[in-house]
């Protein structure tokens, strides 16, 4: 027989442990872990159905922050309120924190080795590629009319040519979107806030 308190503690421990296991698989951020989370929460433990899961995931993609952290906080809150959200977030953050920390210590020990420096030059190239992939995927999804293309080009030009604080741009983006859509509605222009999609194309709100 479990008392309420021990079963609650057990739930928190389970949440922590599930995300602790999934954490290291979140390579480059969230999207790799989505199928794993679904397997644990929907198939194995039957804590929620697939529809609720996909609603939570799309919410996780639109809140600020890494989609992995957001998803774990959502699921944790859904099952165990605030302590659940804390346990899940700690679970997903801790393993990557430890890995990054160890890599950093390793790097500072061997940074003078020419072969370690050479390896890092190669990795530097790969990270350029990874960032370009993220830009490409985001652009494919985000740039679908004249306003969005001009906004993207304008923000890039501002960043390259002036020392503008990027955080200001984010704030501008929030206001701009709302203003342009209202203006278009007032002028009676057709309004699309998202790119038109094919019938069975997946909606991806999360990026690498």
């Amino acid at each position: 027989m479990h008392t309420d308190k021990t079963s609650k503690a057990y739930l928190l421990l389970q949440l922590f442990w599930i995300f602790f296991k999934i954490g290291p698989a979140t390579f480059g951020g969230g999207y790799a872990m989505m199928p794993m989370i679904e397997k644990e929460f929907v198939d194995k433990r039957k804590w929620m159905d697939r529809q609720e899961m996909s609603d939570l995931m799309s919410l996780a993609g639109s809140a600020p922050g890494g989609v992995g952290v957001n998803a774990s906080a959502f699921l944790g809150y859904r099952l165990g309120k605030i302590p659940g959200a804390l346990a899940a977030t700690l679970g997903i953050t801790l393993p990557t924190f430890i890995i990054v920390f160890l890599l950093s210590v390793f790097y500072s020990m061997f940074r003078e080795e020419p072969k370690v420096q050479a390896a890092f030059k190669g990795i530097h190239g790969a990270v350029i590629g990874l960032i370009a992939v993220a830009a490409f995927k985001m652009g494919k999804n985000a740039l679908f009319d004249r306003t969005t293309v001009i906004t993207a080009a304008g923000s890039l030009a501002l960043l390259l040519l002036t020392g503008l604080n990027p955080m200001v741009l984010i704030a501008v983006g929030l206001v701009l979107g709302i203003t342009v859509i209202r203006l278009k509605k007032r002028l009676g222009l057709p309004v699309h806030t998202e790119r038109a999609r094919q019938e069975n194309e997946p909606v991806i709100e999360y990026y690498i």
Partner: protein
Amino acid sequence: MLFWQLFVSFLKIGFLSFGGGYAVIPMIQYEVKQHGWLSTGEFQRTVSIAGMSPGPIATNSATLIGYQTAGLAGAVTATAGIVLPSLLIVILIAAFFYRMNANPWVKSSFYGLRPIITGLIVYAAIHFGFPNPSEAIYHWTTFATLLIGVLAFVAITRYKLHPVTVIVCSCVAGIVLF
């Protein structure tokens, strides 16, 4: 004082880090430059390590920058700073605005946010590819690094290779080439 600065900087970044990872790099770079925490070269290496590790690149960068400026306690402070806003906002959404995504206000603000996030990521790629335009741009290693970048891009988008495979290959290529 340093801990407080680290915490506040990453807290601000955390609140505005829409679009997850790479769009946040220019924001982190801006804060690092303002406070003089790392040199450009150190920042480049930091982002490389953050990019090759599992987990979101933004959180990883926070951990690394915190560690380099103030040791283990700094790493914990910076990581907590960048994760806390997500946690707070997610709890608020989960508790009050469950149907938020269908809201027209949210839809219109994302209409403006997405292209700006695209601009930020492109800027991050350019800045990461050409850290100091004045310094050795015609050096062969700069071209070799960019070539690895192009190959990585093609490998992932066209041949659907896993990012880990690409990073391991480029690591080997680096050891052989440089």
